[in-house]
């Protein structure tokens, strides 16, 4: 059965098409990434799944349960870590988790709550008021709240935004463990490095549409190649179309293979262009992302399933 199955989801806010016919299928046990620039529709899509926003058309199911018609079962199967750092200032960390567990009708959940507190390194703060916690700790409580009812599908909306490196690493570790334990993970993130390291499959959203959907491996392979970072006064005319980016006198030039390096160097020599600095890097997700966002058609081979 599919963990998440969305068909033709569309939603408008006034004249803005936040989602414009999104199809998405996530298998059970997957670690799935949802990428896109600000305003691409990532949070709206997640909110439709969570029942926080209603779609104008289309259907969304979690483990076969429709998110509106069968919302009780759909929501029991879903844990959501929201993007905003929200909390209830009246309660302590433990009260917050116990309350959230109770909303799902669960009683006697203390052992699992203790385990969550331990894994998120919050045991020492269990009886502290939410107000007194640092931003990073509040973020961890949000993760904990999403897990109290042991949902098989977990959605994390930019869980590491504004989080320091150490906490980001420990959150990654914890989320990986959840995935290994069988939870389906859907992650939205701005950190492409994070998606590349964690996600098995990635969907890229732009202006409310899925513009690329493939395994992380295939997405990288599709744009396989090398990038030369060249600091020079100019680039030979024949190489101009290969420029990916230019910033502060540094040209990012795409090569298809190492062999092309020789051709580039020769062209530079022939035009007597002095090289101030030169470095070589393999394609990473950031470059794939930038190229897809510039030109959606380039990702057509990774068409939605």
């Amino acid at each position, binding site marked *: 059965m599919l963990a998440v199955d969305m068909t033709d989801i569309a939603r408008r806010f006034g004249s803005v098409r936040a989602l414009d016919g999104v199809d998405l299928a996530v298998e059970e046990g997957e670690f799935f990434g949802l990428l896109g620039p600000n305003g691409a529709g990532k949070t709206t899509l997640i*909110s439709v799944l969570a029942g*926080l*926003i209603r779609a104008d058309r289309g259907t969304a199911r979690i483990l076969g349960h429709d998110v509106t018609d069968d919302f009780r079962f759909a*929501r029991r199967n879903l844990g959501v870590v929201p993007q905003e750092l*929200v909390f209830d200032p009246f309660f302590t960390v433990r009260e917050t988790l116990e309350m959230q567990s*109770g*909303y*799902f*009708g669960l009683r006697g959940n203390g052992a699992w709550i203790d385990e969550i507190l331990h894994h998120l390194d919050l045991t020492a703060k269990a009886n502290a008021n939410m107000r007194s916690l640092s931003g990073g700790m509040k973020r961890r409580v949000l993760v904990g709240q999403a897990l109290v009812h042991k949902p098989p599908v977990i959605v994390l909306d930019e869980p590491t935004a504004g989080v320091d490196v150490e906490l980001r690493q420990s959150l990654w570790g914890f989320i990986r463990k959840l995935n290994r334990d069988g939870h389906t993970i859907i992650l939205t993130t701005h950190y492409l490095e994070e998606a590349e390291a964690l996600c098995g499959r990635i969907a890229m959203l732009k202006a409310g549409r899925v513009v690329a959907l493939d395994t992380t491996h295939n997405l990288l392979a599709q744009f396989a190649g090398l990038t030369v970072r060249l600091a020079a006064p100019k680039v030979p005319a024949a190489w101009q179309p290969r420029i990916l980016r230019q910033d502060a006198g540094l040209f990012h030039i795409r090569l298809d293979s190492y062999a092309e390096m020789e051709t580039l160097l020769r062209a530079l020599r022939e035009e007597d262009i002095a090289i101030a600095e030169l470095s070589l890097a393999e394609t990473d997700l950031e470059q794939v992302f930038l190229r897809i966002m510039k030109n959606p058609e380039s990702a057509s081979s990774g068409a939605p399933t």
Partner: protein
Amino acid sequence: MTRIVGHGWLTLLYKEVLRFWKVSLQTVAAPILSALLYLLIFSHVLEGRVSVFDGRVTYTAFLVPGLVMMAVLQNAFANSSSSLIQSKISGNLIFVLLTPLSAINLFAAYVLGAMVRGLVVGLGVFAVTLWFNPSLLAMPHPLWALAFAFVGSAILGTLGLIAGIWSDKFDQLSAFQNFLIMPLTFLSGVFYSIHSLPPFWQALSHWNPFFYMIDGFRYGFFGVSDVSPWTSFATVMVFCVVVSAVALTMLQRGWKLRL
């Protein structure tokens, strides 16, 4: 860990009660003090000058049930409305919206939470005012008084729910409170018997549902009222059904809650 039917909304009810109890100085003690000040000032100025129910009841005794009911109504409204608006503005309402709780579950939890606060404060006001008027304890129809306190707090809890859902900002909520709830409460006969009003205002008072809540409540204390307790109870029940239907429809449609 076991899943228990009904535990979800009971947890939300518990949270609603815990929320006001944790700040009880502000939510319970303060309104009791306000009611006591009203009693001291109004009874000092008006005792012996105002005749109520043809002189059968002293003004101070007459005032007590009015103040108790006013405390019940205002605090029931304050609980659900402030809880919702705070959760909406701070964004933590999402924790409730992500759960399997249905519209009826949310309705029951918020309204019952509001009723608990209204009744606790009302009981507190009554206990304090008994010191001035111990004879009030010998009320002829305590069940009538209880019935009106229950339905009145349910109505105001529901109105608080509606106001909390409708308001996007604190000033909208306070407009609802200051321009609707307060005038309806003050003009309902908390401080006077409507028989002392000119005919026009008397007739107008009969269109105020709050009048029936307070008049019926007072019947429980004195066995005397401006209108029959049965008429009052029927009117109050109809009003309760109407506001509950409005609130439930709003929750069912997710109006202003689920975009």
